[in-house]
């Protein structure tokens, strides 16, 4: 949980920086009684100041974070927070991220939590480090810190004397626990936070700079490829590798049980050898996959652990009108543009892995188990890869690369998965079924809401459970097992993320049927269950509004007290020039979707328009408007980019995406069997940010996807009078619904 940010206004003006001068509130006094007081954000688990910030003798700062760049712009945003509190220019703040040898352990970079957790830590650590430097300046400047001003790392007294951070750096003791008691700046005083600072990483990415782990090529590097089985759970009976082994340029064929890979001097030779090995490998096939046409019945038939959440018990009425609908979403792939990649090297019994994993510390723990090595002998270093959008092949390919590199000690091995490795073996966002019933009273208010969902786990990441959660470990000669699947608890939730409506219903019950058996590999895809739950809740809200001929926006507002929620809905409606009573014309319509991500992060309301080609079944989304409240905004353009990107990705999920499979295995092995939205069909997107400077910053990277899906589905229903409840809204579904 995030502790509130200390507010400087609580403290007497002029005391800024003198730790002992602050009075403690009751909760803080209570915390002090415990052996370790609770610290806000990621400070709690990484308590030393110098774990976060170090000041060099040239006056510049090195800032450490366990969160990693995934293309979401987090390192730029975090550098803004640190530079702001330190009163340093951005050019003198160097970021080091995601390195088991150097940075704090902040687990996974996931769940839209980096600004909240790492940002909070850096904000408070930055304020405290600045205060320590000002205290040290007291002797030299002869005045107390409240009389000092700081500009670009230069501390000045009222008489014009000054001293630099660099001069004080050697005497500043940052090897101490953070107290989190130095109040950070007031938002009104921000000079760097709140500005659209251009991303640090983009110039290299547009000029062919070395930007990705795929671009690493240390001296003597070899190239690896792996040969995966035809389907899950298959075992390798035999492989005739005689011809491959004598192919010029092939260094080694590596087999460990049913794990099979090849190392070569050149990449194309490794690719060719992979094909040759695949042709000459004999497999005992694993169990058949379920029938895709009955996948939801199948999932519902499996044993589940049922969790009842969000219960409200108020007055029940007799004789209300009851409504019921069932919705589904299919398996959805992360479908990164670049297949996963890692570089691994064994040297003197130690393993180094360069990886685009979302969590270098959890990955290290899995590698230690899979390779039976002490974690202390493994060094994982984050280097960017293609965008991941959750748990894709990043961790798996790191183990693959390590297994190959173990065969060639002293020689680094770079392994990039081929397209079909990524599509067929990544853990998908799981298929889900949702059923919702509601009752309306005579005034048209919802007085009873009963919601059920069926889903596999949305988190089979490294360290998300016991066991070994990396692919190749399950196929070794001594196979290791994945631990029993788990689901993150409420309020964040897993499959049940955003399953509890933010609306005010007198009676309410949400049942999460957490299905344990996983016929198809699944894990965290951006938003976890929120995408499907928001799609369902918001679709059903429109169904209910429609049943009583109410305007969808007025109907929502009538059930919603949260002022910030109301504000984004009203804003989105205004942006879209929403007119109550407007009718769809059979092929064109508009719809709204709203959610507060996890019910505790960013608020987003989306209005979308659709155009339906009734002959072809093709749906286009010409325009989307989104109003966003993410609290205090660190980098407006960065936030806008995340909201826009989420809308466009969700438009693609909603209109097209579905992992194809049959009993024999996964059929979506390239882009022809997994089409996504392309440039001509991308909607125009208009985003407005409701900047609330005095509210804490909220995670936003996953906030717009659910509302977008619902807005599109509602727009389709508005256009055609027919509702699609099974995603995706592809031509087949559209034609069925229009029949």
């Amino acid at each position: 949980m995030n502790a509130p940010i200390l507010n400087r206004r609580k403290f007497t003006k002029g005391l800024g920086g003198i730790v002992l001068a602050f009075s403690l509130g009751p909760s803080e006094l209570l915390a002090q009684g415990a052996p370790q007081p609770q610290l806000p954000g990621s400070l709690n688990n990484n308590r030393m100041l110098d774990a976060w910030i170090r000041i060099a003798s040239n006056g510049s700062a090195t800032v450490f974070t366990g969160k990693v760049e995934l293309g979401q712009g987090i390192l730029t945003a975090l550098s803004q927070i640190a530079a702001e509190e330190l009163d340093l220019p951005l050019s003198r703040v160097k970021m080091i991220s995601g390195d088991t040898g150097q940075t704090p352990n902040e687990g996974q970079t996931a769940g839209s939590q980096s600004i909240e957790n790492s940002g909070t830590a850096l904000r408070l650590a930055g304020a405290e480090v600045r205060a320590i430097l000002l205290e040290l300046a007291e002797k030299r400047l002869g005045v107390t810190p409240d009389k000092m001003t700081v500009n670009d790392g230069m501390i000045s007294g009222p008489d014009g004397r000054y001293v630099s951070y660099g001069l004080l750096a050697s005497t500043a003791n940052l090897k101490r626990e953070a107290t989190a008691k130095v109040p950070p700046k007031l938002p009104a005083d921000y000079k760097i936070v709140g500005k659209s600072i251009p991303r640090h990483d983009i110039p290299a990415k547009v000029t062919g700079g070395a930007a990705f782990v795929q671009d690493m090529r240390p001296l003597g590097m070899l190239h690896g490829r792996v040969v995966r089985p035809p389907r899950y759970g298959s075992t390798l009976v035999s492989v005739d590798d005689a011809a491959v082994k004598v192919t010029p340029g092939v260094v080694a064929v590596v087999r460990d049980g049913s794990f099979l890979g090849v190392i070569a001097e050149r990449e194309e030779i490794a690719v060719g050898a992979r094909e040759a090995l695949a042709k000459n490998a004999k497999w005992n096939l694993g169990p058949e996959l379920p029938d895709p046409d009955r996948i939801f019945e199948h999932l519902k038939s499996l044993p589940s652990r049922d969790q009842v959440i969000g219960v409200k018990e108020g007055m029940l009425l007799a004789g209300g009108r009851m409504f019921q609908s069932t919705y589904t979403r299919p398996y959805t792939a992360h479908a990164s543009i670049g297949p996963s990649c890692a570089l691994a090297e064994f040297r003197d019994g130690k393993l180094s892995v360069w990886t685009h994993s979302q969590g270098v510390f959890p990955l290290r723990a899995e590698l230690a188990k899979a390779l039976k090595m002490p974690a202390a002998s493994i060094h994982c270093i984050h280097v960017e890869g293609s965008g991941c959008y959750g748990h894709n092949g990043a961790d798996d390919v790191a183990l693959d690369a390590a297994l190959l590199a173990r065969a060639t000690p002293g020689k680094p091995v770079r392994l990039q998965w081929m397209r079909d490795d990524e599509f067929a073996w990544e853990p998908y966002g799981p298929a889900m079924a949702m059923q919702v019933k509601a009752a309306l009273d005579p005034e048209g208010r919802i007085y009873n809401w009963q919601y059920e969902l069926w889903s596999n786990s949305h988190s089979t990441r490294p360290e998300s459970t016991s066991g070994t959660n990396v692919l190749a470990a399950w196929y070794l000669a001594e196979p290791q097992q994945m631990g029993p699947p788990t689901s993150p608890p409420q309020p964040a939730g897993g499959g049940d993320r955003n399953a509890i409506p933010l609306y005010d219903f007198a009676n309410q019950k949400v049942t999460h049927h957490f299905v344990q058996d996983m016929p198809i590999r699944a894990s965290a895809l951006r938003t976890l269950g929120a995408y499907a739950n928001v799609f369902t809740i918001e679709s059903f809200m429109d169904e209910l509004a429609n049943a009583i001929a109410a305007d969808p926006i007025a109907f929502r507002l009538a059930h919603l007290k949260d002022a910030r929620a109301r504000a984004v809905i009203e804003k989105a409606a205004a942006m879209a020039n929403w007119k109550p009573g407007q009718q769809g014309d059979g092929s064109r319509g508009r719809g709204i979707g709203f959610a507060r991500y996890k019910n505790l992060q960013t608020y987003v309301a989306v209005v979308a328009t659709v155009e339906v080609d009734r002959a072809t079944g093709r749906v286009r989304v010409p325009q989307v408007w989104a109003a966003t409240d993410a609290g205090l905004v660190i980098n407006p353009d960065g936030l806008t980019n995340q909201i826009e990107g989420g809308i466009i990705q969700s438009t693609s999920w909603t209109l097209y995406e579905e992992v194809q499979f049959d009993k024999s295995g996964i059929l979506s092995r390239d882009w022809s069997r997994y089409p996504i939205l392309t440039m001509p069909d991308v909607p125009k997107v208009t985003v407005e940010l409701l900047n609330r400077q005095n509210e804490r910053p909220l995670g936003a990277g996953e906030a717009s996807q659910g509302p977008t899906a619902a807005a599109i589905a509602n727009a389709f229903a508005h256009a055609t009078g027919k509702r699609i409840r099974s995603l995706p809204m592809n031509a087949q579904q559209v034609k069925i619904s229009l029949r």
Partner: protein
Amino acid sequence: MATNLKVNGQTRRTTAKPDTPLLYVLRNDLQLNGAKFGCGLAQCGACTVLLNGKAIRSCQTPISTIGNGEITTIEGIGSLATPHPVQQAFIEEQAAQCGYCTNGMIMAAKDLLDRNLRPSETDVREALAGNLCRCGTHNRIVRAVLRAAKVMGRT
């Protein structure tokens, strides 16, 4: 057997086999990072380079088919110090998230703008239809290409 390739105005020699896809030679032998492996199937566009000014998929282009053709990669059109107007426009529009598709987008846009300095928005979207982006930065990319067109049209 060695093959000579004209890359970014220089003749480069490689001993890779003739059927080797150009992409691997560019990335591994010539250490040019720009072109990316995305699918190996000419479906996604991440590996796009120019051959005699036309956008091609280097993952599906064996080096034996290139002959005397002039290959231009993203490194050949501009640099950090002197970016091409398209590269500059991508920076100004912050037209990326992860940036993995960016090479292909820029090279396909260069191909378009070399033929048509006054593209409509639809022209840009059509020209980039074969380049996949997963982060959802399409509209920023379109804005960047239109911005670059204006700049290039002035000079």
